[in-house]
């Protein structure tokens, strides 16, 4: 614990915690995308998968226990990721009190420049998304226990479908810089691995983007009904 605190006090350590939690959340995003794609197998398989998430671990865990454990883990990861990001951003703001007359922009990508605001958009989206499909608070006709129907009904609104697609673009950009950056921060990269890792990060970002938007696009175009 003392070491984790010492780690947290240093800027490099804070970044490492951001990288580690970021990779954890990336793992969640991959499994979430794979889970989503089960919607194409039809309502029964999709509901069975939703049920599996609640019963997995039985009888060691009671119904929903493991799911909540995972949720708590994810919430903690998000909190660490966001708090470290805010603290580091403030540190960077303080580090350059006077800005340049001619802006200095060297070698940064659109993805790397938009990490902070992209992160804010993603955080807002996660809150909306949970209210939309988990609690159904902002869903027009939410039916508990009918995930398939909720997805179909949820994406009927063009505005909702389009904003999901846009936010998945933001997620793709965040992952493109984030995956490479996390590995660099954890010291896993090297000059020979640099190119392959960047290419892999780009490919993963595109696959994740396509995997997620497949659902709203399919609902919207009438493939899923």
């Amino acid at each position, binding site marked *: 614990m003392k070491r984790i605190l010492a780690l947290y006090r240093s800027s490099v350590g804070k970044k490492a915690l951001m990288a580690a939690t970021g990779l954890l959340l990336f793992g969640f995003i991959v499994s979430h995308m794979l889970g989503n794609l089960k919607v194409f197998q039809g309502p029964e398989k999709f509901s069975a998968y939703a049920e599996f998430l609640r019963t997995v671990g039985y009888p060691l865990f009671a119904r929903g226990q493991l799911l909540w454990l995972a949720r708590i883990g994810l919430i903690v990861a998000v909190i660490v990721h966001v708090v470290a990001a805010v603290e580091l951003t403030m540190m960077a703001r*303080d*580090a*350059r009190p006077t800005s340049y007359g001619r802006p200095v922009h*060297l070698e940064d990508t659109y993805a790397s420049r938009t*990490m902070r605001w992209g992160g804010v958009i993603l955080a807002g989206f996660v809150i909306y998304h949970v209210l939309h499909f988990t609690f159904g608070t902002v869903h027009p006709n939410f039916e508990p226990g009918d995930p398939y129907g909720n997805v179909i009904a949820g994406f009927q609104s063009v505005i909702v479908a389009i904003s999901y697609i846009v936010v998945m673009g933001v997620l793709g950009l965040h992952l493109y810089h984030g995956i490479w950056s996390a590995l660099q*921060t*954890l*010291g896993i990269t090297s000059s020979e691995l640099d190119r392959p890792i960047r290419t892999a990060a780009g490919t993963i970002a595109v696959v994740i983007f396509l995997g997620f938007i497949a659902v709203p696009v399919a609902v919207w175009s009438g493939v899923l009904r």
Partner: protein
Amino acid sequence: MKLTLHVWRQQNAGAKGGFETYEARDIGPDMSFLEMLDVVNEGLIKEGKEPIAFEHDCREGICGSCGMVINGNPHGPKKAISSCQLHMRTFADGDKIWIEPWRAKAFPVRKDLVVDRSALDRIIQAGGFISVRTGSAPDANAIPIPKENADSAFDAATCIGCGACVAACPNASAMLFTAAKVAHLGALPQGQPERYERVRNMVAQMDAEGFGYCTNHGACQTACPKEISIDFIAQLNRDMMRAFFTSR
């Protein structure tokens, strides 16, 4: 050549600075950027005005003194050179050139283009050295060092401590500088006993000086007049992780 210069003028650390416009006349293409400033300064002195203060020493690209941001580029638009090695043939007749100092809280402006880079010295003092008993010099090659390590250490050691990495970084982070120093000593056998203590102390000093943190943009390696790679930052990160999770 005739050029229009917009130069940051600031009387002292506490004063409020601003851009002043000057005409640079009779500039030859073979002049260095600093010689161009010398010509402008001579004109200013003749007019009874205060010359533009800028730091310079060797004027051959190895001392790291002549840092300035030229048109949004630390050390100017050309790669792998410092401001003194930039020649006026890079510019065209009639160009407008913006010249300003490094901008970072840890680098307070002393006067005009001169900043105080002592913060980098204090990072070195925190661990950028090896502790050895001095005495007669040891035999050359008494300690065998693999060629790869020697090469890597040398690449890192080319850092001249100019601070362009900090100037270029959107977060005003000194990670490339610190990483070069950590990687230089970390690659050599003489640097091993203090390896993890060094990285911890140097990073702590870097944070204490008020530099920002690294967001892996890579602007520093583009700006670096010695083309030091951000691979060394990954190496610093790696050493830092080990420093936290090993017993030492």
